[in-house]
């Protein structure tokens, strides 16, 4: 099997899976307990936290562990506490539903919302985002890498612009698709909070973290025993977060894998054989995502045909496959229903051979579906 759906989920790294299993059998004490078992769990958690912090160049105390990217995004968006008169939110129109649905929730509870559409290159312009920000803007939400297109959004410029204009808005960044592929440095990014997800970086599902700047005021989504500095009550998922820490360490080591080169080669092979295909977005991109439009074909049959030949990829995004038609991101890019948008997403483990095989399979699958298409006839 050639797995090219890493933007949807990644295989847990063997070391992370092992760390998880070990922690489940050896570190099951409650970190809040005063005895040695609790202490051992706490120590393991501290190490994991330090690794996650290191991945984004943060202080361990700035890291709040969560159940995943969605919870981290929810915390960063819904947890923002702003003065009473600050009742406006700005977000890009291509945010993941984990951000979009939550800013829409804010819009239903007394906030006004401005969504900033992307340009045809698949990126929002920093100027457009900044133009939407007002005195009463409490929150700006901008993702670092879009999960469907792979395009890198101008977060540093947005941050710099907010600072330059003296804006007090909280900048939350969904970095779920960026971490592990782009060097993320919270000291220079300029954001107030940032979300990351375990299962996108070869850690188990059900794990993630929110980074927040010291001094950024965020309210917890719920109350309880006060764990994670009161921001995320609930007995800690020691085994999961220990595995996340291990995966974070591996990420740091793997940042120099030639993922972009492999992705570029994959696209080159495909475009050489399919002149009608084109990249969905031409803006700057993260190294691991290849979003390709093949006009005049439905995506699902092509994907099933690829799957029958052992290559796994997705159309648009995994979350959208439950709905019908192009996702909000693709719609915002002007992609129409009759065109297949295929997303192939690599990992640092993807090999050159797999790239070669996948390109061949995609080309064959497209041919198979094209041949099956009823010939367009002039009459009737």
């Amino acid at each position, binding site marked *: 099997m050639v797995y090219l759906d890493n933007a949807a989920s990644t295989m847990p790294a063997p070391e992370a899976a092992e760390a998880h299993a070990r922690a489940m059998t050896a570190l099951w004490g409650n970190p809040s307990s005063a005895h040695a078992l609790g202490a051992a769990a706490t120590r393991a958690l501290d190490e994991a936290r330090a690794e996650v912090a290191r991945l984004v160049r943060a202080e361990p105390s700035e890291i709040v562990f969560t159940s995943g990217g969605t919870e981290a995004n929810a915390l960063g968006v819904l947890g923002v506490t702003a003065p009473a008169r600050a009742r406006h939110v700005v977000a890009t129109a291509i945010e993941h539903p984990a951000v979009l649905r939550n800013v829409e929730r804010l819009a239903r509870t007394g906030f006004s919302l401005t969504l900033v559409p992307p340009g045809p290159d698949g990126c929002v312009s920093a100027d457009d985002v900044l133009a939407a920000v007002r005195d009463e803007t409490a929150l700006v939400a901008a993702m670092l890498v879009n999960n469907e297109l792979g395009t890198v959004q101008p977060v540093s410029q947005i941050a710099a612009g907010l600072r330059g204009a003296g804006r007090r808005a909280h900048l939350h960044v969904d970095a779920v698709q960026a971490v592990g592929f782009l060097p993320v440095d919270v000291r220079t990014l300029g954001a107030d909070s940032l979300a990351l997800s375990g299962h996108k970086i070869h850690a188990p599902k059900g794990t993630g973290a929110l980074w927040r700047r010291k001094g950024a005021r965020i309210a917890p989504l719920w109350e309880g025993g006060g764990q994670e500095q009161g921001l995320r009550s609930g007995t800690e998922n020691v085994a999961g977060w220990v595995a996340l820490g291990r995966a974070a360490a591996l990420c740091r080591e793997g940042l120099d894998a030639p993922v972009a080169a492999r992705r570029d080669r994959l696209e080159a092979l495909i475009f050489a054989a399919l002149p009608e295909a084109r990249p969905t977005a031409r803006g700057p991109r993260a190294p691991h995502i290849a979003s390709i439009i093949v006009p005049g074909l*439905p995506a*699902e*049959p*092509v*994907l*099933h*045909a690829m*799957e*029958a030949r052992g290559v796994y990829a997705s159309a648009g995004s995994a979350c959208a496959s*439950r*709905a*019908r038609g192009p996702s909000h991101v693709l719609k915002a890019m002007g992609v129409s229903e009759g065109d297949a948008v295929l997303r192939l997403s690599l990992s640092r483990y993807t090999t050159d051979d797999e790239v070669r095989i996948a390109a061949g399979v995609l080309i064959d*699958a497209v041919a*198979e*579906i094209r041949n*099956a*298409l*009823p010939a367009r*006839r002039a009459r*009737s």
Partner: protein
Amino acid sequence: MKSLVLCRFGEIFLKGANRGRFERLLHDNVRAAVAGLPETKVDAPHGRVRVEVPAQHQEEACERLGRVFGLVSLSPAVAVLPEIDAIADAAIAVARAARARDPRRGESFKVEARRSNKQFPLSSPEIAREIGGRVAAATEIRVDVHAPALEIGVEIARDVAYVFGETRPGPGGLPVGCSGRALLLLSGGIDSPAAAWLAAKRGLALDGLYFHSPPFVGEKSRDKVLSLGRALARWRALDSVWVAPFTEAQQRLREAGRAELAVVLYRRMMMRVADRLADRIGAEALVTGENLGQVASQTLRNMATIEAAARHLVLRPLSTYDKAETVALARRIGTFDISALPYDDCCSLFVPPHPATAARLGDVEQAERALDVEALADQVAAAAERVSVREE
């Protein structure tokens, strides 16, 4: 006091000489429905089916029995000795329990008594009065013989008396199997599962036939259809689903004729495949979820053109249902939510933009002459794979 569920059947009484066979099938189906419940015994004295079940499993038994076709009503009950004291105690317990579960049922009551044992010293009205009096005294619930909130039933046989506080409707119909076997054309849509349920209700034992077209349709579509099969298996409506690979047939039919005839051509081929499979499994009829006038292929003319390719009798239980009625039925039987999942089993690639609404048999037969439709049907039927959907 032994707890049990009294199950009553209806139409079977009309069958005369066939009664023995129908009752046997009903008993088998009842037994199968409660299989797996501990310490449960099924027997059938006095013209009804009696399921003895420990009190803690009585509710679950009722739920399962509520899905047995052939039963018109069921009552969770207790069995006691046919003596007035024992019966009264049971009736008092029933009244108290009903009131505890729902205070509104404790507002008023009456007793309905019947005795099949004519040797019992009191007549039915006397029994009702005596039991009623004792229940009223013990529970202080007032008697109301016209519009009682709670009706306590007492049935006295020769060696046992039953006391119960409610009668729930059963699904009615005839026991599955007593009308023979049929083959259902099953898709992931709302209609065919509802049609299956209606057919099974009249006693047909069904197998399902699903036409699968990978890669135009994915594994999730197949899983969805099997899920529907399992939901129907809870009613014993379906036993297995046959999955027939239809991709090549669809492609060749699509190329054979004019675009607008495509859907009619597919459905005629499906009928041929269904005929062959029906022969193989001993089914005497085909069942479809067709409805009059809903989509282009379901006009009278098209239905006739499609049916002309079938040898077997074709039953269409939903032909006169409104969509809203079909949806209500699908919700009731537990298939609507599954059908509503987005994994379609017919890729839009193969449906022409303007399907013919009145395809003429002559045109269709001419298109079919371009291929060997009988050989193609043989091929598809031979490749059909049986998947069990029984809950075991």
